[in-house]
């Protein structure tokens, strides 16, 4: 993962995806709620990884959203393993 990206923009991408998939999703209330509890099915979990892949322009494991099953844990993982603009600045 070589690209430098903004953490906030990644959060926005994930939020947009989840808002379209999950009725009544709000980042404020659900950042630490498990994605399956929010009603995201297994295909949705895998699709979410492609949203992340497209954004960071690098491959991620298809099981990532199962291994890091909340918005916060997912973002922390992606940012820890990549270079974000926030870290660089």
């Amino acid at each position, binding site marked *: 993962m070589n690209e430098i990206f903004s953490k906030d923009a990644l959060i926005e991408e994930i939020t947009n995806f989840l808002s379209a998939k999950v*009725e009544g999703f709000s980042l404020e209330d659900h950042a630490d709620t498990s994605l399956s509890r929010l*009603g995201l099915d*297994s*295909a949705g979990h*895998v*699709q979410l990884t492609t949203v992340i*892949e497209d954004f960071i322009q690098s*491959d991620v494991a*298809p099981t990532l959203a199962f291994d890091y099953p909340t918005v916060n844990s997912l973002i922390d993982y992606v940012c820890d393993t990549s270079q974000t603009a926030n870290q660089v600045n």
Partner: protein
Amino acid sequence: MQPTFHLFMDAIREHAHSIPDSNACIFQPRGLETAQHITYAQLYGAVSERAQLLVSLGYRDQPVALLYPTGFDFIINFLACLLAGVAAVPLNVTRNAQQFERTISIINNANIKAILTTQSTKLLLAAQITELNSTACEGLTWVTEEDAVEVSAPLPTIEPTDTAFIQYTSGSTSAPKGVIVTHTNIVQNMEAIRVACNHQRGVVVGGWLPQFHDMGLVGHMMHPLYMAGTYVFMPPMYFVQRPSRWLRLISYYNISCSAAPNFGYEHCVNFIDEKENLSDIDLSCWKVALNGSEPVCPQTIRAFSTKFSGYGFKPSSFFPSYGMAETTLLVSGGPPQQGLKTITLDKVKLSRGKVVQRTAGLEVVDCGHIGPDFRVKIVNPESKVECSQDEVGEIWIAGNCVAAGYLNNAEKTKGGFQAQLLSDDGFQYLRTGDLGFVKNKSLYVTGRIKELLIIRGRNFYPYDIERTFNNYQHANGINGASVFTYQHDSKIKLAAIVEIKKRVYNKLDHTEIQNDLRALVSEHHEIAFDKLLIVKPGTIPKTTSGKVKRSACIELI
């Protein structure tokens, strides 16, 4: 049919001598640069070494579980079991707790004492077992890459009737059953596939199908190896994540035969974005696009053909087929280059079990010519009398590809594998549980007996009606409807649950949507529902592969 080889491993031994440096398998876990190759000489060498270990450990004739992530380890260990006369039981490595419990139940059912796996998978599984707090795995022996043979043990002589492997059926609705596949079953089915697909020596076959699944194991992995060809494969999850990877694999490696259940093709239609750059893909090499192991949907085939014909895909390559673990794999398919062929039947007549062609009605897919070595009968499942040519009945099959029975299940083996016609013709038949008919040597499958709905004396197949619901303009689609029966005051009632697009669900009047749906099914199927529920997307209970769990839907109404 007299197979070219007496045993499957005779073929591999022969190829290791005649074409030692040819690629037997290519595994591409991620991008092109990650591809790994193994030649026939390397493969046979690794398999022989592993087989000697299994013999020296005393596993001859014993069932042994294979728990491997997608890769060469699975192939080597599976073939080593064949060579050593060990009954391989391929299983799924899963992190899903429910699926893992199924794995445990299979280990118990097959009375497995040893597990072949990798060291890293062993650690993962051990943690899951501890989490389950199960005593089921106590006393199991784990054999990994760290175990190696010290003394060379002579390999046993294998008889064609010996058990080769145990294929557990998906069993999404019932307890898993282990199909006993013999060595002769394998070579006979290799020949059946060769004839149906018109495969030549050196054929390149592969795709994303799981290696523990019958279509992935027998069709994708074993068949090209038998034919001195190349097996090309990728992890299934990487296909699910981005389906264009499958098409890219086919294009890059010039794969001429690649199979998937209907949902694989549908996944490409729905999830390959129009904006995605596919300019490097050329699908003109794909001669056999086999569609099998779940009902073949003509709409999916047409949509896939339209979407990908611009990338060299020939619609005539579509190869609807019929088969199952109980027949090793393939029963019918082809001839090649026939593409999608359907006939349209009178729905009302069909609901009374009669095959009558009409210009408008229900479209049924031709699942191809029945293999020359199969004896297929269409039988009334209750009277066990053979049906006449224009009648729908249960598909019964006899022949050398039919497996030996279910492991440790005498009752199901008797009921499922040893059926006899009322007019006993001297054959024992496999009862498939599927309904269909034969026309001009081709097999047509109309549904499953267990799922057949009998409403006021008429027979309905739930998925035909579900398809009508899914085509409704506001329906969420993609397995977003469930049709089933329930009992009320000792009467059988008909119910449906349909998922409606979220925005429409929140905005439009629900009665109006329900009226639309009632009008739609009445027009297409001439049937009325006792209960019709509309719900938001994601409400209908589904299996892990996305199939509707009809029995679980009853609780929703």
